[in-house]
C-alpha cells in the first residue's frame, strides 16, 4: 500500500510547528515516530494535507527533573525511556508497560508522546479503504452506525496504549501548547471518552511535556495478548503504589482508560476494586479474542497486578 500525497515540513521549535499548523487550515498533522500514524495513512484513515515533523525539536527530546517532577519530553523514544536510570527504580509500572509495548525495534522508533496520542483501534476500523468501503463506514469513519454493535449509539474502539495506563497510575499530567497558548492538565483529562475522537486536544495543540511526581513507587503492569511481543493489549492493567495508597488503571477496552483509587489494601478491598473494574469494563467483539473472555480477564489481571505491586512494596 502506498502513502497518499502530502506536504512534508520539519519544524525547528514548537512555535514554528504551531505556525505551520495554522497555515494548513486545520488539515495538517504532527509527526513524531510515525509508528501509529504511517499505517493510518496507508489505510487512508488519515489523509492530512501536510505532515509537520516534530523530530527536529530538541526541547521535546529531553528528560529532566523540575522541582518534584520528572519531566519527560514526548519525543523521547520508548526504548530510551525504558532504559532511563530512574524509571525502573522509581516507576516500575511504567518500566513494565514500556517493556511490554510492541517489540524493542519499534520501541526504538516509537515515542512516548505518540504512544499516548495513538488513535483508538477496532478490528473493523484498522483496515484498507477498499475493505472499509465494502463493509460500510462506521461512526469513527464518519458513518452513521457501529459495525460491531448494531444500533449502538457510541463507538467502542479500544484505546491501546500500554503506557498511558502506567502514567495514569502514577498521577501524571501533561503540558500542551497550541495556537491559543499553553495549558497543563491531568493526564485523565486528555481523554474525551468518545471513540470517534478520543482526545480533548484542541486543533493544533502539541503535547510538550509529561510530568510525573518524583516519588519512588512500587507497581506492576499486566497485559493480555495472544503473542508475547508486537501485539496491542486486549486488556492492560497498571498499578502503582506510593505510601500505602495507589491507583489502578484498566485499559485496552473502550476508548478511554478506567482509573480507580486503591485505599483499602485488605483482601476484600482489593477484590472489590477488581470486581468494580470488571463491571465497568464494556468490551465488545472488536478484537481477536471474545468480549466475554476479556471482561473476565479484567478481574484476573487487576488482582494479579495489585498483588505484584504490593509484593514488590514489601
Amino acid at each position, binding site marked *: *500500500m502506498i502513502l497518499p500525497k502530502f506536504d512534508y515540513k520539519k519544524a525547528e521549535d514548537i512555535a514554528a510547528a504551531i505556525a505551520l499548523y495554522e497555515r494548513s487550515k486545520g488539515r495538517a498533522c504532527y509527526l513524531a515516530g510515525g509508528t501509529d500514524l504511517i499505517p493510518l495513512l496507508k489505510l487512508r484513515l488519515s489523509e492530512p494535507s501536510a505532515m509537520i515533523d516534530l523530530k527536529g525539536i530538541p526541547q521535546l527530546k529531553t528528560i529532566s527533573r523540575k522541582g518534584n517532577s520528572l519531566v519527560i519530553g514526548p519525543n523521547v523514544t520508548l526504548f530510551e525511556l525504558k532504559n532511563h536510570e530512574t524509571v525502573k527504580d522509581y516507576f516500575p509500572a511504567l518500566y513494565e508497560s514500556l517493556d511490554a509495548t510492541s517489540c524493542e525495534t519499534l520501541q526504538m522508533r516509537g515515542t512516548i508522546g505518540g504512544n499516548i496520542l495513538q488513535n483508538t483501534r477496532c*478490528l*473493523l476500523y484498522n483496515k*484498507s479503504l477498499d*475493505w472499509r468501503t465494502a463493509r460500510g463506514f462506521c461512526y469513527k469513519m464518519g458513518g452513521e452506525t457501529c459495525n460491531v454493535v448494531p444500533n449502538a449509539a457510541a463507538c467502542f474502539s479500544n484505546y491501546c496504549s500500554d503506557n498511558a495506563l502506567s502514567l495514569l497510575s502514577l498521577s501524571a499530567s501533561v503540558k500542551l501548547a497550541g495556537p491559543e497558548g499553553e495549558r497543563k492538565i491531568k493526564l485523565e483529562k486528555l481523554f474525551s471518552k468518545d471513540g470517534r475522537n478520543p482526545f480533548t486536544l484542541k486543533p493544533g495543540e502539541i503535547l510538550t511535556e509529561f510530568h510525573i511526581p518524583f516519588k519512588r513507587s512500587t507497581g506492576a503492569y499486566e497485559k493480555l495478548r*495472544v*503473542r508475547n511481543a508486537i501485539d496491542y493489549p486486549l486488556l492492560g492493567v497498571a498499578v502503582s503504589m506510593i505510601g500505602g495508597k495507589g491507583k489502578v488503571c484498566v485499559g485496552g477496552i473502550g476508548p478511554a482508560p478506567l482509573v480507580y483509587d486503591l485505599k483499602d489494601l485488605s483482601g476484600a478491598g482489593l477484590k472489590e476494586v477488581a470486581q468494580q473494574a470488571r463491571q465497568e469494563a464494556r468490551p465488545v467483539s472488536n478484537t481477536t*479474542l471474545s468480549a466475554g473472555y476479556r471482561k473476565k480477564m479484567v478481574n484476573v489481571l487487576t488482582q494479579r497486578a495489585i498483588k505484584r505491586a504490593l509484593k514488590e512494596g514489601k
Partner: protein
Amino acid sequence: MKDDLNIVGKRVVRSDSLAKVTGRARYTADLKFPNMLVAKVLRSPLPHARILGIDLTAALKVPGVKAAISGFDTYGVKWGVFRYTQDHDMLPTDKVRYIGEDVAAVAAVDEETALEALSRIQVDYEPLPAVFEPNEAMQEGAPQIHDAYKNNINVHVHINVGDVDKAMSEAFLVREDTFKAAGEAYAMMEPYAVVASYANGFLDLWMPNAGPHVRAKALSNLLKMPLNRVRVRHINSGGAFGGRSEVSPGDLVASLLSIKAGRPVRLALSREENATSTRQVHDMIATVKTGMSKDGAIMAKDYRVIYDGGAYSSTGPIATSIPFYVYEECYRFPNVRYNGYRVFTNKGIRGMYGCHGRAFIAGNEAQMDLMGKELGMDPVDIRLKNGLTSGEVTATQSKITSCGLAETIATASERTNFKEKWTKTSKGKGIGMGCIAIMCGFPMGFRSGSSCYVKMNDDGQATLVTGLVDNGQGNESMVIQVASEILGIPMEDVNLVNADTEATNLDPGAYSQAAAFVGANAVRIACENARKKIVAIAAEKLGVKEADIDLRDRMAFSRKTPGKNMRISWVVREAFFRGDPIVATGTYFPSIDFEREWVSRPWGQMAGTFSFGTSVAEVRIDGQTGKITVPHFTAAHDCGRPINPMAVEGQMEGSIQQAGIATIMEENLWNKGFLLNPDLLEYKVPLACDMPEIETIIVSSIDPEGPFGAKEGGLTIRMNAYSAIACAVANATGTLFSELPLTPDRVLNILERKKGAKK
C-alpha cells in the same frame, strides 16, 4: 548404493543462503523491465451478487492508463484442477462469489494512476443472498453458489473398506466426537506477485509457484495460447506451503493486461489482498467415530468431515481426501468409512496447506489417547499397537516400502520421558504426541515424473537442467548436493537451470512432497549416467578397470592406486575431442497406480514411498487466563536419508512454528464474509519469543527407491505438530477439546466446563 558419502548427508551451507541473508536474492516484485506498467485489481465488495455490467470507459480515459480489462476480455475458460471441477472463472462475468474476488483490472504507468483508474470503473451488481457456513450451505433452500452443484456440495469423497457397521458392533469400545477447526492463512513472507511480459507472440511470466510446468499449462488453457508460447520463468519464492500450487487469478490478470498493453506488467498484491484474494486454508468440522478391541487395536473408523470450500473448487477432491490419507498411511484400519464433503460458501478461495486436516488429525489423535486410557494403554503403546510397519498395505491399498514410524515414536518418547510425564500430570502441565505419515508424490498422470539433463562444461564444472522448483525449502541446494556427490565436484562447481518451462522438462513441482523423492531422483540418475561416461574415459586413460575409478574433489582416480589420477576437466575435454561431450539425461517416474482417482476410484498405490514422524509437545496452562505456553517441543522425523540434515532440521523447526505453536493462536476470523484479520498484526503468526525449546531428531529409514535413500524433508512434522499440542492440552485438562485453535478464551471455557462438571 555407496555408503561412504562425501557430501550427501553432510551439514552443508545451502547454495541459496548467502543471497537470501544478504538481501540479494530477487523475488517477483523486485523485477524491473523497461516500460513496465503497474497493475491494480478492482475487487468485489459483495459476497454474492450478479454482475449486470462492467464499464471500463472512464478508467481508460485516465492519462497514463495503458490497459483495462474485465471478465468480458477473457475466453471464459474456467479453471479447475480436474475436468469435473472446472468452475472458476478467474475474472467472472456472471456473478461474484466472495468479497475480494477479482472483477476488473488496470495497468498504468504508476500505482497512483492505476488506483485513480480503478476508482472510475463502474460495476453494476444485483446483490444476492449469501451463505457463509457450510452446514447452512448444505441445507435445502440455501443460496446456490454454483448452479452445477446441488446444495452447494462441491465434492463428496466416499471411501468404504471392509464392513464398518459390523466391526463397530463387535468393538469393545466405541467413541464418537466432533471437532471443529478454523481455517488458517498461509502467511507467506512474500505477498503474491506476478510479472507478465508479452512480446512477439510469446508470454513470459514470473511468479512464486510450486510447479512452473503445471502453471504454464493452466495459463495456456485460460489464454488459449499454445503451450510453447507461455513461458514461466525461474524466480525465488517467498514461501508456498501449498498456497502457490495452482494458477491464480493474478496470473490471468497480469497476462491479459500485458497482452493488451504490449508492455511488461507487474501486479504485486498487498498483504490484505494476499489474504482475502489468494487461496487460504479450509475451515472444517470432523466427526470421528472409532471402534477398538479390548487390546487397543483399531477395528473400525467412521468419518464425516465437512470442509468449507469457499467460492470455487480449486484442488477440491484432493483437499477433501488428504487429511484421511495421511492418517490411513500411518495407522492400520481393517474397516473404514470416510465421507468427506467439500461445500461451497461465499468466502475466499481455498487450497491445500502443509497442515491440512487439523480438526481431523488432531481430533483422531486426541480421541485415540482417551480410548487408550480407558483400556489402560498410554499414547505410546496405542500408537505402536496400531502403527503401520514396512511391508504392510494401507486400507486403500498403498504398500509401505520403508517405515521408521515405530522408531520415531520410541525415540521421541524416550527423549521426553513421555510415559512418566503423561501418567503423572501435575496441575496445568501436559504432554501430547502426534504421529502421521505423508505420501512422497501422488498421482498426477504423466506429470508425476521428473527429468533432468546434465552437461559437463569444459572446465570440469556441471550444469543441471531440471524442472524442480524451490519455494524456500532448499530444493535447489538439495539437487546441487546430489550432483556434487555423484560427479565428484564441489557444490560451487554445479550450476543450476531450473523451474523455467522453456529450458526445463516436466517435473511434478514442489507439492505432494515430490521434490526429493522424484525430482532429486531424476537428478541422481542423470548424474550417474554422466558419471559412467566420465569413468569410462578416465579408466581408459589411466589404464585401470572402470570399477576401480572413483571421482572426488574434481579428480578421477584409481581406488587401488590413488597415484593414478587425472582431473575431471581433462576427462571432459577429452570427451569434447572425441566429438562425444559428456551430457546425460535421467528420468524418474514413481511407482504409482495411475488408475487411482480421488473420487471415482479411491484406492491403489498412492505414492512411491511414505515418510513418517512423531511430535511430542509439552505445554503449561495458566489456569486463570487459559493461556498456553509451550516450553519444550520434540520432533522425530523419518525422512529417509537426510541429504542435508541442517536443512531438514530447519524444515522441522519451521513446521513446529507453523503447525505447532499455530495450534494456540492461528485462525482466520470471519464476519459476514469479511475476513477480519487479513494482516499480520491480527492474524497471529507465532513470533520468536513464542517459540519453545526445540529438539529435532532425524530417523533415517533408508528408502530403497529414494535418492541416496531420501524421502522428504519435514512435512510429517507440519502435519502432526498440531496434534501434539492439542493432545498435550487434552492431557493437561483431562478433557477433549471440540474447537481449534486452542486460544486462551477457548481453553478457559474447557477449564470452566470441567470445573462446572466436577461441582
